């Protein structure tokens, strides 16, 4: 499938659009359906599409499992850290108003940080799940030579 030019070129064109759409959903949680979780899933879907079209080796090279583990942890840390910051600034856990001198701006900052934490963790987890589930079923199947050549094509283009 990865050697199919139609799928490859349309996929290349589509992936940036999907990423923009994911972040649009992320940042419009207050105005429409959306939020960090949904955005994380869409961003994860973009990476899964990339992996489906260009193969496991290329995907692991661009976004390594190590990086994904780090990203998932940083997301949780950001969420918790925002909450604890509220306590440290004489508020309650996850109280946004005290984050900045102006409560309104504090609300904005708090929401954006929390949602960013959710986005990081969810997208990393979804992608890592896809890596894990597909690893054992395809590793024995894929022809190492084909994988190597498609990877070097990636590097050259």
């Amino acid at each position, binding site marked *: *499938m990865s050697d*199919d030019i*139609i799928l490859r070129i*349309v996929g290349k064109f589509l992936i940036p659009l999907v990423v923009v759409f994911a972040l649009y959903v992320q940042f419009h949680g207050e105005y429409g359906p959306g939020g960090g979780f949904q955005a994380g899933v869409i961003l994860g879907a973009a990476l899964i599409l990339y992996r489906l079209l260009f193969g496991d080796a290329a995907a692991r090279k661009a976004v390594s499992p190590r990086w994904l583990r780090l990203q998932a942890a940083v997301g949780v840390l950001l969420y918790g850290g925002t909450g604890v910051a509220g306590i440290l600034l004489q508020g309650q856990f996850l109280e946004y108003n005290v984050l900045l001198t102006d409560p309104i701006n504090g609300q904005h900052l708090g929401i954006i940080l929390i949602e960013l934490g959710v986005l990081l963790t969810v997208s990393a987890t979804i992608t890592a799940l896809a890596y894990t589930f597909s690893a054992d079923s395809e590793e024995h199947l894929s022809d190492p030579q084909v994988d190597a050549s498609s990877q070097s094509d990636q590097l050259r283009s």
Partner: protein
Amino acid sequence: MSGLESTGSTTADLIAGALMALGALLVLLGSIGINRFPHFYSRLHAAGVIDTLASGVFLLGVGVFFGVGLVSVKLLLIFVFLLFTSPTACHALARAAFISGLRDDSRRADANTSEAIITKADNA
């Protein structure tokens, strides 16, 4: 025709209702085709009608309902998105079926050349 209930009947709503009804009818016909045609490859063509003409007419109707503005651009985006993805999915489906050896009954004398092409495509 009563138009769209939520806003009462203006001319635009009537046109929108008519276009959407036509689109829905085309979707229905396409689905009948999916069940009526023999063999996988013929069914692909019936599904193609739904993906292109039917969804185009339907989304045009939705666009008339919402009026000109950013929403119609969004609808156009959905349509263009379908215009890009649906033939790609359709082609990928046909390709996977062909490579796995599925043929319809009207296999032609040139089937041997097809086999040769598959072997070439597999090795590429």
